[in-house]
């Protein structure tokens, strides 16, 4: 969103200021301090110190996103696989997330949100200046969209969880056959050449799509379209599971999938309402939208099942929940509640067709429908945001940008993300194939990756 501009810039600007201001304060007496706290506010209209309320909210949000990954996503994905691959699925999700955390503090944050963004061409795609978080201290802060700031370590942590869950999401398409080692190597390279640049393009001050004014409140493009497309490409290069689609592969535990669904929904509020970076009314708007779009998505999917002559299923409920959550992600703070409901309904319907019809037609094996749900619903959400953002549809937009213009911007942003993720993933997949190989042996696939790759059984 436009206001992001302030952010990108703010991170740098304020950090500097904060650092010095912080030292000053330590020297100062309590009294002086109290004054000091007011002073800059008046003088700079940018308090140097994070409001504990905003910090509290952002830390809570960060933790909620971790909840989405582990146990959330691990269970959602794991329950859909066959029991012989349960632990492998959960471990790949956990491993990808853990790896992303380490990479993030080493070079990820610097590449995506580093203080230095070159004016030139390159600045459109990456930033720099904070390798190993060199520019971050407990006193540095990151700007929000208003005049507030939050502690930079909190901002770093929050953004870190986004990288972590996106990396984990991709692996849902390749479960039950991809090597753990391959998954880890893929994750490391993919974050570096696909995720960090896309995050920078969309969210950082100098980012290409950001400067274009693309709307992506909480990561519809950066997280879901990106993960969905990458998952599809990787799954196609990896190949189908042995026996797919002839052999039945029902979810081994819909219960685990439902638990995971619940946790994903719960955690998604950190994802969506947290992306406001403040505990204000817009965060409240993002919250209500994340409730109703999801509820609408859940029922829409079940309804489609009925219309297709089947029974409304529990998995349908879960799938609709995810589709709704994905669709409302870019629109969370960019839509009114009823715009959000419409998005949830549409995304759920389109994703339903993608998953139950398109997929079978095209015959690729996106095992857990990462593309079918995250990719498709993500695109519906990204484009739809241009519409629901408009005041005439109850959106918070001020109407300064015409709907048509905004829609074009959104389409371009989606196209760039799709292309970047698709090409990048293809390249990486072949690199990994050359280095570690992508697939487990047929015997291991048959026996299950739990025993074959990890030497354990999920249930004894």
């Amino acid at each position, binding site marked *: 969103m436009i206001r992001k501009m302030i952010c990108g810039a703010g991170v740098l600007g304020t950090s500097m200021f904060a650092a010095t201001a912080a030292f000053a304060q330590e020297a100062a007496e309590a009294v002086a301090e109290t004054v000091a706290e007011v002073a800059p506010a008046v003088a700079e209209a940018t308090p140097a110190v994070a409001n504990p309320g905003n910090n509290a909210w952002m830390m809570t949000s960060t933790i909620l996103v971790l909840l989405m990954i582990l146990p959330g996503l691990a269970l959602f994905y794991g329950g859909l696989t066959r029991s012989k691959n349960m632990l492998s699925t959960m471990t790949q999700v956990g491993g990808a997330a853990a790896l992303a955390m380490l990479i993030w503090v080493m070079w990820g944050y610097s590449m995506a949100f580093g203080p230095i963004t070159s004016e030139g061409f390159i600045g459109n795609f990456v930033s720099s200046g904070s390798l190993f978080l060199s520019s971050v201290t407990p006193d540095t802060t990151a700007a929000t969209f208003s005049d507030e700031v939050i502690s930079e370590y909190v901002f770093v942590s929050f953004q870190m969880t986004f990288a972590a869950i996106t990396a984990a999401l991709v692996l849902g398409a390749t479960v039950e056959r991809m090597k753990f080692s391959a998954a880890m190597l893929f994750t490391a390279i993919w974050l570096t050449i696909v995720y960090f640049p896309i995050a920078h393009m969309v969210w950082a001050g100098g980012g290409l799509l950001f400067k274009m004014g693309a709307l992506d409140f909480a990561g519809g493009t950066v997280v879901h379209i990106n993960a969905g497309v990458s998952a599809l490409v990787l799954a196609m290069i990896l190949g189908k599971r042995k026996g797919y689609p002839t052999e*039945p*592969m*029902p979810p081994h535990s819909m219960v685990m999938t439902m638990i995971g669904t619940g946790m994903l929904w719960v955690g998604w509020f950190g994802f969506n309402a947290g992306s406001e970076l403040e505990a204000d009314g817009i965060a409240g708007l993002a919250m209500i939208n994340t409730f109703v779009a999801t509820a609408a998505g859940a029922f829409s999917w079940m309804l489609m099942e009925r219309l297709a002559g*089947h029974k409304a*299923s529990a*998995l349908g409920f879960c*799938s609709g929940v995810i589709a709704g959550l994905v669709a409302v992600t870019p629109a969370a703070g960019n839509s009114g509640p009823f715009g959000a409901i419409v998005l949830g309904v549409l995304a759920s319907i389109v994703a339903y067709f993608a998953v139950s*019809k398109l997929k079978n037609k095209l015959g690729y094996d996106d095992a857990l429908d990462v593309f079918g749900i995250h990719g498709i619903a993500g695109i519906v959400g990204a484009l739809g945001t241009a519409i629901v953002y408009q005041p005439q549809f109850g959106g918070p937009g001020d109407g300064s940008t015409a709907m048509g213009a905004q829609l074009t911007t959104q389409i371009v942003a989606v196209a760039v993300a799709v292309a970047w993720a698709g090409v990048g993933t293809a390249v990486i997949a072949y690199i990994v194939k050359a280095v570690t190989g992508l697939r487990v042996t047929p015997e291991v696939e048959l026996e299950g990756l739990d025993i074959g790759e990890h030497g354990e059984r999920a249930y004894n």
Partner: protein
Amino acid sequence: MKFIIAIIKPFKLDEVREALTAIGVAGMTVSEVKGFGRQKGQTEIYRGAEYSTNMLPKVKIEIAVSDEIAAQVVETIKETGSTDSIGDGKIFVFDLASATRIRTGETGDTAL
């Protein structure tokens, strides 16, 4: 002695067991099995992928009995196990060469 294997519908188990106890069957061994036969199962659908499992949950009862009551046992199972609908199951009878009670080492009818 005879060894009887009966495949019945799971929810009939208690009824059958009580009926058998009533006619003096002291013990039996029960296991959960999947049955394949004329009875067709429900189709499950997960995200558009249909699985028509014609493997239905059934219960298998194994009973060793003396030759005298064998016929009566079969008869009892047939009556109590029936719902007059497809899938009620089967009763198979075998000749049992010998039976031993582990605890006492007793053999033959007294071991049952």
